[in-house]
C-alpha cells in the first residue's frame, strides 16, 4: 500500500524528466521516497532520479514495490492540475492500478507489467572534471547551438568551461571563466562531444527549476548532469554517452 500527496509541479517535473528518454518506465516506491532509473532505447541517455519523501506533503509506504508506468498516460492525467495543486497518488497491489486524485477528480491508471522491464544499473564513471554552471547560461548556449548543428563539444580546463558547436559554416561558442562558474574542479583539459537533442531535453528539465547544474566531464567519456530542486528533495542525474568521433 502506497499513498502520497505532492505538489503537481514536482511530480510533473519527474515524469517529464523521464519521458524525454522513454515511453514506459519502472518506478520503485520505498519507505524513503520514489526512485527511478531508465535508459533510452538507443542506450545513449540515462536518468537516475530520487524523489525524497520530504518532497511530499503526505507520504506513506509500508512495503517496497515496483510499478510500471505508461508515462504518456500519466502526463495527460497530470495535465489538468495547476502547478500549485496537490496531487494524491495511491497504489495497492491488489487493485493493481495507480489512483491519481486531483481535487475532486479521480483517475485510475492501469499499470504495466514490470517483469519484462530491464533493471537498469547506473555505470560508475571516473570523471576527472566537475563544473557547476548557471542553468541560464547553458540553456542559452544550447538554444544558439541548435540553430546550426546537431552535436556540441564540452571542454573544461583549469581556467574555465567551454561549449562549442560547429555547423557546416557557422560556429557557436560559450566560454565561461572560472569566476563566472559556481565552482570548477579540473586539473587537466577534458573534452567530449554530445548529441544536442538529448542535451537540450535534459537541460530544459532543469530550466526554471534549478539555478545550477553540476557537470562531470571526461575525455571521450559520458557526461553526468546533476541538479536538485524542491530544497534538495528532488535529485535528478542524467548520463549521456558521447559521440564516437574516430575509429
Amino acid at each position, binding site marked *: 500500500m502506497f499513498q502520497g500527496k505532492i505538489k503537481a509541479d514536482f511530480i510533473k517535473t519527474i515524469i517529464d524528466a523521464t519521458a524525454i528518454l522513454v515511453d514506459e518506465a519502472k518506478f520503485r516506491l520505498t519507505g524513503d521516497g520514489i526512485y527511478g532509473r531508465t*535508459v533510452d*532505447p*538507443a*542506450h*545513449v*541517455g*540515462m536518468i537516475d532520479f530520487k524523489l525524497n519523501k520530504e518532497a511530499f506533503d503526505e507520504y506513506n509506504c509500508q512495503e517496497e514495490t515496483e510499478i510500471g508506468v505508461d508515462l504518456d498516460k500519466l502526463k495527460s492525467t497530470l495535465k489538468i492540475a495547476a502547478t500549485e495543486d496537490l496531487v494524491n497518488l495511491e497504489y495497492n497491489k491488489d487493485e493493481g492500478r495507480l489512483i491519481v486524485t486531483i481535487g475532486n477528480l479521480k483517475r485510475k491508471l*492501469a499499470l*504495466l*507489467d514490470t*517483469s*519484462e522491464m*530491464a*533493471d*537498469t*544499473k*547506473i*555505470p*560508475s*564513471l571516473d570523471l576527472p572534471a566537475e563544473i557547476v554552471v548557471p542553468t541560464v547560461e547553458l540553456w542559452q548556449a544550447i538554444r544558439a547551438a541548435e540553430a546550426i548543428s546537431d552535436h556540441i563539444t564540452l571542454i573544461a580546463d583549469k581556467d574555465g568551461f567551454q561549449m562549442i558547436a560547429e555547423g557546416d559554416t557557422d560556429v557557436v561558442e560559450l566560454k565561461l571563466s572560472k569566476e563566472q562558474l559556481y565552482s570548477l574542479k579540473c586539473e587537466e583539459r577534458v573534452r567530449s562531444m554530445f*548529441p544536442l537533442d538529448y542535451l537540450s531535453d535534459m537541460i530544459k528539465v532543469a530550466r526554471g527549476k534549478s539555478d545550477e547544474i553540476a557537470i562531470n566531464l571526461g575525455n*571521450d*567519456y*559520458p557526461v553526468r548532469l546533476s541538479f536538485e530542486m524542491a530544497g534538495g528533495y528532488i535529485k535528478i542525474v542524467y*548520463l*549521456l*554517452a*558521447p*559521440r*564516437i568521433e574516430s*575509429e
Partner: protein
Amino acid sequence: MNWTEKYRPKSLKDVIGNRAAKEELLKWAREWQQGKPSKKAAILYGKPGVGKTSSAYALANDFKWEVIELNASDERNREIIRKIALTGAIHEVLSIDGKFISSKEGARKLIILDEADNLYEKAGDFGGKRAIIETIKATKQPIILIANDYYELIKGSGAGLRGLCKSIEFKKVSSREIAALLKKICQMEGIVADPEVINEIARRCDGDVRSAINDLQSIAYGKRITRDMLSHLGYRDREREIFTGLRNILRAKEMRAAIREAWRIDESPDNLILWIDENLPMEYKYPDDLARAYEFLSRADVFLGRVWRRQYYGLWGYASELMTGGIAVAKKHEYRGFTAYHFPKWLRSMAASKQYRQIRLSIAKKIGKVMHCSSRKALEMLPMFKKLFADADTAARLAARFDLTEEELFFIVGDKAKEIYAEAEKLKKMEKQAVLFNFK
C-alpha cells in the same frame, strides 16, 4: 514460459544448423572487434524459424555486445529508425549492467533490425529503408538486418543495401538436428517422449526450428508425450498461421494494427470469430477487459447474423473490424508472456458430430415427408417418436411407413434396430396400407 524464449541459444555455438552462415557471421563480428569491418552491416535472411534472430542475439552475447533492438511491433518509420538506430549507431553505449567501456576499448552495441523487409510504410512515408541506409553509412557500431524475404528488402529504395551489407543466407535446418534439439529439451523439462513423435514433429516442421519447439510445447501438457498426441498436431500448418495472427490481434495496442493483422491471416469473419471466442479468455485475464471484449464480440456476431439472413456480405466488414479492432482496444491492461491457444472447441465438436447430425437430419426429412411438415419441425418431434418406438410392434410399422434404414433405426432405438428393421421390411413387402395404418 515460451520454450522458444526459454531455450533461445546463449552462444552462437548452441545455434543448430547453418554452419556456413554462422561462420560468416562470426568472421564479420571479428572484423568489427578488430575495428575495421569491410561491411558495417550484415543482412541475415532466410525462412522463418531457422535461427536468424537467435544467431544475432547469441553473437551479441558471445562478444559481450549490448543490444539495441527495433522490433516489428514498433512502428518503424523513418523518424523512429533515425531516433533509435541512427542515434545508437554513432554514440557510445551506456550499458545497463553498470559498466562503461568505450568503443576504443572494444565495447560495442549491436543494433538489430528484426523483420527489416517488413517496415512500417504508410502512404507518403517510404523513408524507412532510406533511414536504414543513412544509418549504415554513418554507423560506428555493428548493425544486423534480419529479413525473411531478401528481395523485398533490397528492392526499390532498398537497392543501396546490397552493396553496403554483407548478406548471409540461413537455410532450413535438417530434421535430424531439430529432433536432437527437441530430445534435449524434453530431457531438460523432464518429459518422457516417444522418439517417433519427436521425429515426426521434426519432420513436419520443414526446417522451422521455432515452430517445432512450439509444437512440442503445445502437446507437452503432461510429463509424457505419446503417439496419439500427434493427432493434436493435425491442424498445425493452418493453426500456426492463425495462432500468430491471433496473438497479434489480441495483443495489438491499437485498432488499426489488429485490423491489418486480420487481413493478413485471411480467415473469413465467421470462422475467425470462433477462434477469438475460444481464445479470448486465455489471453485477457482481467474480468473487466474480458467483459468489454465480449461486448464487442457479440456485436460482431450480430452483424454476422445479418450477413447470413440478408445474404449481404458487405456487412462482413463491420463484423470483422468489431471482432479484431474492437477487442484489441477493449483491453486496459497489457498481456505478456506465453499463452497456449486452442483450436475452437465448437468447430472440433461440429466436425466430430458431423455423422450424428447427418443421420438425424435424414430421419427428420423422412418423417417430414410423411407427416407433411418441414424437417425442422420433424426434428422437434423426434423425442416423441423415440417414445413411440419403444413399443416393438409400433416401431416396425412406423419404420416401414417412414422407410427408415437400419442405421437410422439404430439412432432411434439402439440395439433393437436389427429386429425391428427385419420386421419393418416384412411389413413393407406386404404392402397393405390397411395393415400399416391399423394402429392398436
